[in-house]
């Protein structure tokens, strides 16, 4: 189907443009901000570090050359995953990020999966059975949790379950000196509480949106027509309602990834897991700008890629999107 393929190509092109804009944004912000450009680029420790290192880095960044050349070799460096040098941590930003990123993914992916599945179940159930007990319980609860600042939930969870009840460890990735299967279970034991907190945040964000979509679909005409054709309620729900809730569900999961990334950053700080969150927190504490930019770039890439995948799935799931009429000039 021509329109299907051209739809996907157009989507990919659109995301490439967005990624380029993000890179330019990331490149321009330090050079535009007030203050000493050298510090803005290298971080506040640049003033203290020994001048030899500064000279080498200045050469490497070519701070004196024109903005355009800096931009070109900034992009060139990006392709070799060279995100710059963090003076504070005195190591390449890209290495720092690569280890921490997998810890964060270890936190985000299970939370994303569980929260999507659970919110799909509860959202559909509450959408179809309005006013029942679960609906009256879940809706206000998810609003309250949605309104709760992320760190509050994390703090409460940590202090009650870990500190008072001692069910879970007080934080940190995993106790060292273990290997193989025991290490896996140990990290699982350490990560259990943060993942549940992130899942609860994810569910609160998704449940209401899904409940809305299901309620809207259940009131559509074709559901009444299906009922008039003698299908029993189960097949109607399975075949029509859930199938139609898929596109909005995919779109909402994509948008929700950003929310989860933010939640993960804060949760890692509180549970002191060495993921992107703590990295970002230290970078902010010491104003280590290359590291901040690196974290920002990587986090944004993960969100962009997940949204690209979701957009394509959305296009495949809902044929109407593929050939929506775009009359360029409208009635004026």
């Amino acid at each position, binding site marked *: 189907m021509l329109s299907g393929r*051209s739809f996907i190509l157009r989507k990919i092109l659109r995301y490439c443009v967005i990624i380029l804009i993000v890179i330019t944004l990331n490149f321009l912000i330090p050079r535009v901000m007030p203050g000493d450009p050298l510090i803005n680029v290298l971080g506040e420790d640049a003033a203290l570090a020994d001048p030899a290192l500064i000279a080498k880095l200045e050469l490497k960044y070519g701070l004196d050359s024109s903005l355009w050349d800096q931009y070109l070799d900034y992009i060139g460096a990006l392709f070799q995953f060279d995100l710059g040098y963090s003076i504070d941590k005195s190591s390449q930003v890209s290495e720092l990020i690569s280890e921490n990123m997998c810890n964060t993914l270890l936190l985000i992916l299970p939370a994303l999966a569980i929260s999507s599945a659970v919110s799909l179940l509860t959202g559909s159930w509450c959408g179809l059975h309005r006013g029942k007990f679960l609906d009256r319980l879940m809706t206000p609860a998810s609003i309250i949790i949605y309104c709760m600042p992320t760190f509050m939930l994390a703090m409460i969870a940590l202090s009650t379950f870990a500190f008072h009840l001692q069910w879970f460890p007080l934080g940190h990735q995993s106790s060292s000196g273990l290997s193989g299967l025991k290490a896996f279970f140990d990290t699982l034991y350490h990560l259990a509480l943060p993942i549940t907190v992130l899942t609860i945040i994810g569910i609160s964000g998704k449940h209401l949106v899904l409940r809305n979509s299901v309620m809207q679909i259940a009131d559509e005409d074709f559901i009444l027509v299906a009922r008039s054709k003698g299908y029993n309620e189960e097949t109607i729900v399975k075949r029509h309602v859930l199938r139609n809730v898929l596109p909005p569900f995919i779109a909402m999961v994509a948008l929700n990834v950003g929310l989860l990334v933010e939640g993960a950053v804060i949760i890692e700080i509180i549970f002191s897991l060495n993921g992107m969150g703590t990295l970002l927190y230290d970078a902010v504490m010491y104003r280590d700008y290359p590291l901040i930019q690196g974290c920002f770039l990587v986090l944004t890439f993960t969100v962009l890629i997940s949204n690209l995948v979701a957009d394509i799935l959305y296009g495949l799931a809902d044929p109407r999107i593929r050939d929506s*009429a775009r009359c360029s*000039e409208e009635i004026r």
Partner: protein
Amino acid sequence: MLTLENVSKEFVLSSGRRFNAVKDVSLDLNKGSVLGMMGDSGCGKSTTALIACRLLNQTSGKILLDNMDVSSHRRKALSQFRRSVQIVFQDPISAFDPLHTIRWSFSEAAAASGMTAEVQSERQDELCQSMDFPLCLLDRFPSEVSGGELQRAAIVRSLFIKPDYLILDEPTSMLDLSTQAQISRGILSIVQNDSIGILWITHDEALAKAVCDRILYMKDGMLVQQS
């Protein structure tokens, strides 16, 4: 006289598919006569209507008002032209802004051509009387009025500023028989004493024969037959 000369309109769908709704249509509308346009749904009738009153720009072709080319008019001249050609749409419910009363919409129409208050109220009574629109409904909101009344009010509003031409895009297809008869009679009476040119678009054969002097038949964007 309002003429369309081999007008055609092409929409570009987001999937790149080009769909031309109107292919090389030319028609002329003279004052005091009713020109009918027949065709099944999706044959480009409504698009031609929008092009005729210059709400939608045509891809190619010319529009002449008393053989003066108006297709390239912009801003001031365009709104001047638009005041002489009015249009009434098919769906009465969306014809009025739900947040204002019908009287406010009438005053908006009057203000378009700078009528003073008493000229407006006198014109208003005259039109409401001829279209049989009850004056007690003037201060109601559109949601409190039935479809038939709303369509009458829409026609009153479009005739408020004495246009030379009036385009009706299936005005009565959403209404039932007796309201359709009432509204059609009202329009015909106005055509006589105000000598307005009417382009009446419908897919109901009997109504077209009963109301129009000339009928154009359209199929898939092209004019096929005249009677």
